[in-house]
């Protein structure tokens, strides 16, 4: 059994010369070298041959294969370099847009605030959005007949008299619930939605978010409050952030303070955002008022603590340079995709 290897090689080379791209070359490879290709067919004849012929026959098929492989590889290389020379990819074309999900900027900022305090040992507590009038006001030392109540205009639920129900106007009622549910010492963080009947404009919304934090122990000091909040400000707004504590008034803390941070936009030099003062007011705080402890049945001679509260929208607006609170609730995708 023999075959004309010259003829096969000639035919192969002729076809090889016609190949002009990778696809035709691949087709040729399959035709000659493939599993059901011509060379395989010659090989498959080996078992049918007399034993003495097998070696010579096999050897010549192998030689043929080697020769053809050389030609094939040369052609492959030639085509490759030709293709490389001609290659052009317009890489200025845009990449395909990745479909990316996003947390709402308010969620992101709220989470960031919570994580900082959680790392300090504060635990999250979820209070309800519908509160009793007592928890929202009287328990927190805000008598309804007092002007201090003016700062907390509140939506009341209709037809609820005993107890009177309302949409909480701040997260502080969580203090009352958490202090009743858990035993001191404790450190609690209460984030959530709050509501006030403010007409909606660029800086007001009838629904917004607050984060309330408080800790109760036997030796908590005002200086500790300063330490915790100064730490928070540096982590939230950057290493170099300075904090300033100003005396203020909240019915549920005594002494009370308002906390300013050095303006992150002008670094304290004075700009339009900080009204040229170099400071931005970001939160209110103080030592928990004895009245609050009495409301939850704690011994005021034994326990003391501090509390603080901040508006998430305000911090997000400062952080991202947003000047209209309505954008948070308009939910334009072009807005949400930026954060």
């Amino acid at each position, binding site marked *: 059994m023999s075959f004309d290897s010259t003829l096969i090689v000639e035919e192969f080379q002729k076809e090889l010369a016609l190949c002009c791209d990778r696809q035709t070359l691949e087709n040729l490879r399959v035709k000659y070298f493939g599993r059901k290709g011509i060379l395989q067919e010659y090989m498959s004849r080996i078992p049918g041959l007399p034993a003495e012929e097998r070696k010579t026959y096999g050897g010549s098929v192998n030689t043929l294969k080697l020769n053809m492989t050389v030609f094939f590889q040369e052609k492959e290389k030639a085509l490759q370099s030709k293709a490389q020379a001609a290659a052009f990819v317009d890489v200025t074309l845009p990449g395909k847009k990745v*479909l990316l999900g996003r947390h709402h900027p308010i969620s992101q900022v709220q989470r960031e605030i919570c994580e900082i305090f959680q790392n300090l040992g504060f635990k999250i507590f979820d209070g309800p*959005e519908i509160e009793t009038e007592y928890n929202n006001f009287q328990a927190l030392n805000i008598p309804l007949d007092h002007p201090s109540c003016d700062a907390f205009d509140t939506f*009341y639920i209709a037809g609820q008299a005993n107890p009177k129900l309302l949409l909480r106007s701040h997260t502080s009622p969580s203090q009352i619930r958490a202090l009743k549910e858990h035993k001191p010492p404790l450190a609690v963080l209460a984030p959530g939605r709050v509501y006030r009947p403010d007409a909606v404009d660029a800086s007001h919304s009838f629904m917004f978010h607050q984060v309330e934090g408080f800790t109760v122990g036997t030796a908590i000091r005002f200086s500790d409050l*300063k330490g915790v909040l100064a730490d928070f400000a540096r982590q939230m707004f950057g290493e170099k952030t300075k904090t300033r*504590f100003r005396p*203020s008034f909240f019915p549920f803390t005594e002494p009370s303070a308002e906390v300013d941070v050095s303006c992150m936009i002008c670094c304290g030099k004075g700009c339009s955002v900080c009204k040229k003062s170099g400071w931005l007011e970001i939160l209110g705080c103080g030592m928990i008022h004895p009245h609050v402890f009495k409301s939850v049945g704690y011994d005021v001679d034994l326990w003391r603590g501090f509390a603080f509260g901040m508006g998430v929208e305000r911090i997000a607006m400062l952080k991202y340079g947003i000047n209209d609170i309505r954008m948070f609730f308009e939910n334009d995708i072009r807005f949400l995709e930026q954060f």
Partner: protein
Amino acid sequence: MKITYSWIKELVDIRATPQMLAEKLSMAGLSVAAFSPIGDDWLYDIEVTSNRPDWLSARGIAREVAAITDAKFKPAFFAETKKKSRLLQKKAPHKQGALFDLSLEDKSGCLLYCAGLVSNVVVGDSPDWLKKKLQSVGLRPVNNVVDTTNYLMLEYGQPLHAFNFDKIQNGKVFIRRAQPTEELVLLDGSCKKLSEDILVIADTQRPLAAAGIMGGQDSEIHHDTVNILLESAYFDPGLVRRGVRFLGAASDSSYRFERGVDIQQVEAALIRACGMLRDMCQGRIDAIRTTGRFSGKNVKKASKRISFSLKKATDVLGVNITRPQARRILEKLGFAVTLRGKDMFDILAPSFRRDVAISEDIMEEIARVYGYDKIPTTQVSIKPCCALVPKERVMKIRLEKLLVHAGFKEVMTYSLTGRQDYQKTFFEIPPDILTLQNPLSQDNSMLRTTLLPGLLACLAFNINHGNKNLEIFEVARIFRDGREIMTLGFGISGARRASWRGEMSPYSLFDIKGVLEMIADEFEIAGFIVEENRDYKVFEPGMGFWLKAEDKLIACFGQVSEDVKKALDIQTREDLFVAEVSVEALAAVATFKKVFKAYALTPAIVRDLSLIVPRRVTFKKISDLIFSIAGEHVYDVEMVECYQGKEIPQSSTGITISIEYRCLDKTLTEAQINPVHARVIESLRTEFSVGSR
């Protein structure tokens, strides 16, 4: 409260520059909201907290400045003593017939009432110094009488009211509660019905003024008014506050009375005012009368003694303040301090500090003047309590993450809703829906019982603003059955991102179902079932569904109906899909623990099968049958393609499914699978008259 640098300087020796003073004020609790030059002076706009009505006056601010800058508060430079009062009255020629009587009927509603009669005044322009002073703090000069009362209110914090004395019948003044039948036309022209909760100043016939709130139009001062009765009083703060609310009328006066005026200044301010009217309007002081529980009393004796421990205060504050330091601070602020033992102080607050009642208040006073900035910052040792994170919060966080991973943008919509939102989305308003007693508008007057209207409004807003391709979600509380229920809502519209490469994949019902299946997978909820939801008209007929697990409703989902699109004016032809999941119901059937499951390392034999299936034969029926026939050999049945075309009969669907045969622990051979697969084909044919292609 607006005040100028020069006004403060009149009352206290300040060495600080206007800028330095602004800083000092802020750091002492008189928050300077705005600070600007006016002419050669400086104007401060101070935010006065509700506990400090004494700062609603130039004298109050000056007194504070004296304390915080260690400067001298200039002694009262006008005589305001009883002696002076008597002197003024003595000088006045006693004219019969022009006198008046005070009758105080509500002694707890008005602790002190003083009135002065100034006759023969000439109402006209105020002198320039007075006009300039009022203008400097943004007040418009009116005439010398009104300007005098305004000026003294700003100077003393004591509101004064001037009546046209000739309008008071028989010169008899009553301080009493109003009758429910009475009415009063206020200075602003509004006619108000009164009630027993309103304190009025009246004559024998009718009310003349709502005490501490606003005067009446009838007894108003005009340019031709001749005889004036000036009033200065201490009205009960709570009563004034209730009155303001009832009448819906407020004024600079009521603002101060609500917060409490300094009872010691009541008479002084009146005497000063009478003196000014005498000097500026050529009037004559005929009489000054006072009545009330505090008439002629030393108020200091009435205030409560506060027992204060300096050691406790310094311990709480974290500072070292010595006894003399503390004492000096308190005395500068007007407190009377008596030392008791080594550590204790007995303290009496001045009459203008009704806000100071307990030792914590004293602590703040000391800290404030000492300087909050001098208090060190220390590290707190927090003892975490072992409060577990509520399951609901765990679910919320995991769901939010999951949806974000799936490419969804989180939105935040209002919890308040209105009738319109329900009508436009064809939801029925539950009869027990919670409504607000005092809504801002009807659009936001109810507490939502579903997230879907808000989400649809959000989709509508975006689509109509040109954002066609959307995937949004929200996890928030809804208010139902008297509870707050954590709920997840999500919606999609448009297509999964098309690009210039032209791969466009419009969203379908199976995209929204896919998200629900992703959630079910995440929480390993096996065996959920889908049923048609005919209750919600928000969905296109036949395109709304319930998702149930363990017999509980977990979610609803479907394609938004064309009617809803029209009602919401959504300008797109593309379909919208929404879903709402009860996080609470989900939590009840969810598995939170992840356990490793072995996956096959053996090779699979995959057989594709193209079938023509009658319309009513569902994929679930087919796959269930395959699993029952092929048993342990079958690993997965997947849908590859589903189509209709010319070659498929009208009542049928052409489908291609892919059956994966696999055994977890050994390699299957073709020989083992071929008969199984043949049985599958045969069963499909006999059971469902399925034809193969």
